[in-house]
């Protein structure tokens, strides 16, 4: 695949190295001259000095034959324009944007960006998951389907403790996919009994999330 990456910060740099190791043809665009110098010593011809927002630059690097354009600068407005120009002028099939402000995810989606990744949001939920007090953690969002993958730690006072899964009143748009008990995984069936301290991995629609929290007694 031919992949163009806009923005040579830490994310752009490691992403470029990684994708090259995976055998892809990668071109990284960085507009700052001193940063470009540093990057070019490491990456050689895989990095070029230029602004990925500029249609002329994108034309020079052959954006019209790119399979993917990834925008990972530190500014959301730049990432938006990089992806929109790639799509509109060069018919790039897949555009991926880094979001610095997680609130922008809906806007980017509405404006036609295929995939958004928010490091801020990911870091927040990773840290949340490691806090001893967390009972309900969003692990991942499946944006196109409007689903979340969540982890629930069953509290001792939860109404579901001791119940079989079939007797738990779950929202219709949810599915308990995995149970982790004492570091062992269990693929649950309707008969599986829930214990206090179990970690439950569930798929749930955004609308069903509150209902799921209520069912497990993890509403804050």
């Amino acid at each position, binding site marked *: 695949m031919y992949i163009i990456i806009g923005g040579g910060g830490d994310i752009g740099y490691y992403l470029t190295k990684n994708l090259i190791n995976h055998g892809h043809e990668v071109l990284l665009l960085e507009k700052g001259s001193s940063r470009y110098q540093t990057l070019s010593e490491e990456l050689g011809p895989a990095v070029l000095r230029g602004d990925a927002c500029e249609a002329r630059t994108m034309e020079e690097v052959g954006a019209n034959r790119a399979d993917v354009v990834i925008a990972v600068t530190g500014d959301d*407005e730049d990432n938006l324009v990089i992806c929109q*120009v790639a799509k509109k002028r060069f018919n790039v099939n897949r555009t991926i944007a880094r979001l610095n402000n997680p609130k922008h995810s809906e806007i980017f989606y509405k404006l036609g960006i295929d995939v958004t990744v928010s490091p801020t949001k990911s870091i927040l939920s990773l840290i949340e998951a490691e806090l001893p007090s967390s009972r309900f953690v969003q692990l991942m969002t499946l944006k196109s389907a409007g689903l979340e993958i969540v982890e629930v730690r069953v509290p001792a006072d939860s109404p579901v403790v001791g119940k079989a899964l079939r007797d738990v009143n779950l929202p219709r748009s949810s599915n308990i996919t995995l149970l982790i008990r004492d570091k062992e995984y269990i693929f649950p069936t309707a008969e599986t009994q829930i214990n206090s301290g179990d970690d439950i991995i569930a798929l749930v629609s955004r609308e069903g999330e509150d209902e799921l929290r209520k069912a497990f007694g993890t509403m804050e």
Partner: protein
Amino acid sequence: MKIVILGCGRVGARLANMMDKLGHDVSVIDFSSDSLQRLSPDFQGTTFIGNGVDEDVLIRAGIREADAFAAVTNGDNRNIMASQIAKEIFKVKKVVCRIYDPIREETYRELGLETICPTIVGAQLIFEAITDKKQK
């Protein structure tokens, strides 16, 4: 009418003063309080300090009730993003976006934004002044 202006540089401040004088309800947003000093001392509208691509800031400035929105910061991409938010999310009827880069301007005009490119307009006027003729 109610207008929200993003960017209080020379153009933004002048536009705000013009609209204000005509009795319109004007809100101006800028990153820096220094820029807001450009407004005339008898400016009657409201000013907001903040990031114009942040929905909350736009809502505080009254974008939901706005009849018009103008993006005139010195960043093309910021103007583009803010204008699209105004148009697509808040459904503001009249959205005008300033873009300095002629190529980007063309792209976003084709995408349906109402754009103004001062680079093209300025060069054309200077060309006409020098050659004394109108020519495309």
